[in-house]
């Protein structure tokens, strides 16, 4: 792999490839500046959008502070989930055990808020000192007549993907007591977190087609909605990285089949709607779906076309959490006239990298668990004009003179569905064609006395 143009660790070389799937599903190297997060983070981001549940973090303060209302998920109902609840363990709690504090916190929650469900997230230290969190949860359930679900999520137990799985287990525990028949003519959406209201867009499509959404895991969800999930005919899984486990379990226990679906881009959205109605829709619903697709895709094309001349021939780099989203983005860029020159994911799966490799040009770089210096070197080498990524990548891109679009928690406009496809074109245009870049370019030619230090 001699093409790697700079100093990387030998162990990393296998995770970087050109036009081919890289090695993946490996632990990050100690000492790497990785963009990845931990088990707790994975569990928390999946569960937190359950709006009327109580998300209590049992551990020292940091994990609660850092995950307070950062998800960007919207709720039409309760705003409870946008607050931060924590046992704020102190030194004496770590020495003598944190259980008393946890018990007190559970009692106080019951007294002040009377919630239906409490999720307790046990973080690193609790995993080490061995608080019997389950016992405290059972006590609280008996004493206050509420559901208390424990998520044992010490950060060191693996990476974010394990957290997704733990969240899936917690969701199964939540929903299992609910009734599982009779089935109704409806579907569930899995792995849409209602960032910038995206779940609402998708829900409206299905509503119009005549296949209402029973439960959405977990964007804009309330506990009572989730409890209806076992009655659905089909699970439509959007973020496969976080929700495949839950979909498999729901199939196993309640016989609900599932499909992977992407609502990013006109083509993928149309495909997702068609696949859904093909599986569970009637003839009439298929007709409605076709009508919706025809109307909305033509409207989207109309809204996208003004941006096309400004985007033609530009080069895109993608660095996202899961591989499935990257696949949609490559297609979307192609539709907009951009070439994808770099694709990376924090935690992609082998089969996803296979698809990615089949979609990009032979010399496009594909990386798993990339770190900033790799992103930098390859964006430079490939001459990327725009990077799609998350919060930590944004300033890096700007420093390199590369435009940026947040396709993660900080997106402020919906990028899903037909309307989102048009928004995406606009977002890419506004950053690639910003007038600010002109000043960056002229800076080099100015006859100023002092050059930048360094």
């Amino acid at each position, binding site marked *: 792999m001699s093409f790697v143009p700079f*100093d990387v*660790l030998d162990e990393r070389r296998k995770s970087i490839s050109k036009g081919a799937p890289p090695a993946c599903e490996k*632990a*990050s190297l*100690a*000492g790497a*500046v*990785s963009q990845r*997060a*931990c*088990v707790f983070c994975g569990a928390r981001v999946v569960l937190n959008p359950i709006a009327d549940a109580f998300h209590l973090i049992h*551990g*020292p*303060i*940091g994990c609660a*502070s*850092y*995950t*307070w*209302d950062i998800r960007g998920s919207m709720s039409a109902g309760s705003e*409870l989930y*946008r*607050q*931060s*609840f*924590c046992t*704020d*363990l*102190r*030194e004496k*709690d*770590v020495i003598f055990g944190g259980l008393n*504090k*946890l*018990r*007190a*916190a559970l*009692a*106080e*929650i019951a007294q*002040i808020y009377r919630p239906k469900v409490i999720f307790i997230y046990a973080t*690193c*230290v609790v995993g*080490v000192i061995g608080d019997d969190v389950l016992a405290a949860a059972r006590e609280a359930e008996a004493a206050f007549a509420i559901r208390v679900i424990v998520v044992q999520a*010490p*950060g*060191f137990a*693996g990476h974010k993907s394990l957290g997704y799985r733990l969240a899936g287990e917690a969701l199964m525990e939540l929903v299992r007591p609910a009734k599982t028949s009779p089935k109704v003519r409806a579907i569930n959406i899995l792995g849409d977190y209602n960032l910038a209201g995206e779940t609402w867009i998708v829900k409206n499509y299905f509503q119009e087609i005549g296949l209402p959404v029973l439960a959405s895991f977990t964007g804009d969800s309330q506990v009572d909605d989730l409890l209806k999930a076992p009655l659905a005919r089909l699970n439509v899984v959007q973020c496969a990285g976080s929700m495949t486990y839950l979909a498999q379990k729901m199939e196993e226990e309640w016989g609900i089949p599932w499909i992977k679906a992407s609502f990013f881009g006109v083509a993928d959205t149309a495909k997702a709607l068609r696949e859904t109605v093909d599986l569970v829709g009637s003839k009439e619903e298929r007709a409605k779906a076709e009508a919706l697709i025809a109307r909305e895709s033509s409207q989207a094309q109309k809204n996208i076309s003004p941006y096309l001349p400004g985007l033609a021939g530009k080069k895109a780099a993608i660095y996202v959490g899961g591989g499935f989203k990257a696949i949609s983005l490559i297609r979307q860029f192609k539709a907009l006239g951009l070439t994808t020159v770099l694709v990376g994911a924090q935690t992609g799966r082998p089969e996803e990298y296979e698809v990615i490799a089949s979609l990009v040009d032979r010399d496009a770089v594909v990386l798993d668990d990339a770190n*900033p*210096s790799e992103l930098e070197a390859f964006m430079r080498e490939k001459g990327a004009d725009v990077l799609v990524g998350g*919060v*930590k990548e944004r*300033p890096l891109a700007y*420093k*390199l*003179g590369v435009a940026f679009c947040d396709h993660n928690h900080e997106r402020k406009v919906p990028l899903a569905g037909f309307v989102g496809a048009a928004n995406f074109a606009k977002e890419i245009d506004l950053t690639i064609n910003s007038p600010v870049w002109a000043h960056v370019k002229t800076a*080099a030619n100015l006859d100023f006395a002092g050059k*930048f*230090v*360094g």
Partner: protein
Amino acid sequence: MLDQTPKEIVVREGLCVNPLKTCQPVGALYAALGVSRCLPHSHGSQGCVSYHRTLLTRHFKEPAMASSSSFTEGASVFGGGANLKQSVKNIFDVYDPDVIAVHTTCLSETIGDDLNSFIQELDLPDGKIVVHCNTPSYVGSHVTGFGQMVAGFIRYLAQKDAPKIDKIGLFPGFVNPGDIRELKRLLALMNVTAIILPDPSFALDGPMTGTYKMFPPGGTPIADIVALGGVKKVLALGLLASKEPALTIKSRCGVETELLPLPMGVAGTDAFLLKLKELSSQPVPPELELERGRLIDLLLDSHQYFYQKKVAIFGDPDTVVGLVAMALEMGLTPKYVATGTPGEAFVVEAKALFAAHHEPLDGVRIKAGADLFELHQWIKNEPVDLLIGTSYGKQIAKAEDVPMVRAGFPILDRYGHAYHPLIGYPGTRRLAELALGALMDRYDRDCADEDLDVVM
């Protein structure tokens, strides 16, 4: 938003709601970014450093690089020594910093990792340095962690019998790059040469050049930290953030050290300049006198709008104390003063400011170790006219329909704030303008049409 917050206050012994602090490691990471060619390293799980980098990036809108020991189940059972060893090798091989600044986490502290011996056993490349500090997340807050990291650099690097130099040492405390730049300006105007530790300007307010450097220029050079032991005197700013570094330089190198509040507000800035005057042979230059005069002029022009306006001030202890001083000088009434960082010294300091301004403490609540839920409950019981504090206060501002001025750390929902100092005369000038603007915008929004006046 925050509909569930009840007015009735109950004593809570287990539950923290909407914290007003975060954990030590992020402060340590921030401090380490202020040392030249230093890579901060988090000795713990991978999530920690991801969160810290995200928080700093959201506050400064700049890249914040740091590495992690990436603990696994095995490391948490057998100790993280092997992870640290591997990390240090990988970091010097690939990223090539001059120094790695390790901070611990709740995990590595709880399993009892002994960083002193881990580091002694490292086989380091020539000229490369590894330092560390202990920052368990269950002690203090991010502000304490900042101080611990600065103290860590001193413990490892400051030479005990360093040659005497004609410089002072300046510990700026947990402040923004804009504050550091203001400190540098004041030092230059007062003709005082200083070693500033740490100096996160440039690393976190870097200019757009079209090129990216993993280790931006700027930051305190290692040689300067070594030389700190020989300075005439150390001024340590921020009674909490700089306490540990001040004690460390004093006990290690015997340097005369003075711990001072952040130079915020008119009197705070006056005192700081007089301190610099003692250290310089020169008087305070007219430029600063005129600047002070213009500030007082502004405060006089606008004082009627501040009179009897009640304000809630919240954030980090050193910053909040400075903001309280400013508010009292402007004629605002600080009704609630809160920090999440534990420590009663904060309460004592804040109360002393009230006494100095002959302001009664009746109905005033001052609390360390508070959370924003409690502050919200206070406000529900007795409202205020203005909030001054960090971004998370915006939920209260919206729920109670109170105008808000952002100041402190973290500010995640505004741009450009970190360029502006809160210290010095410009800091008070800016806060006065922001507070006035917020109060006046609110008046204009709420007043009857006949009361809307273009002249205020």
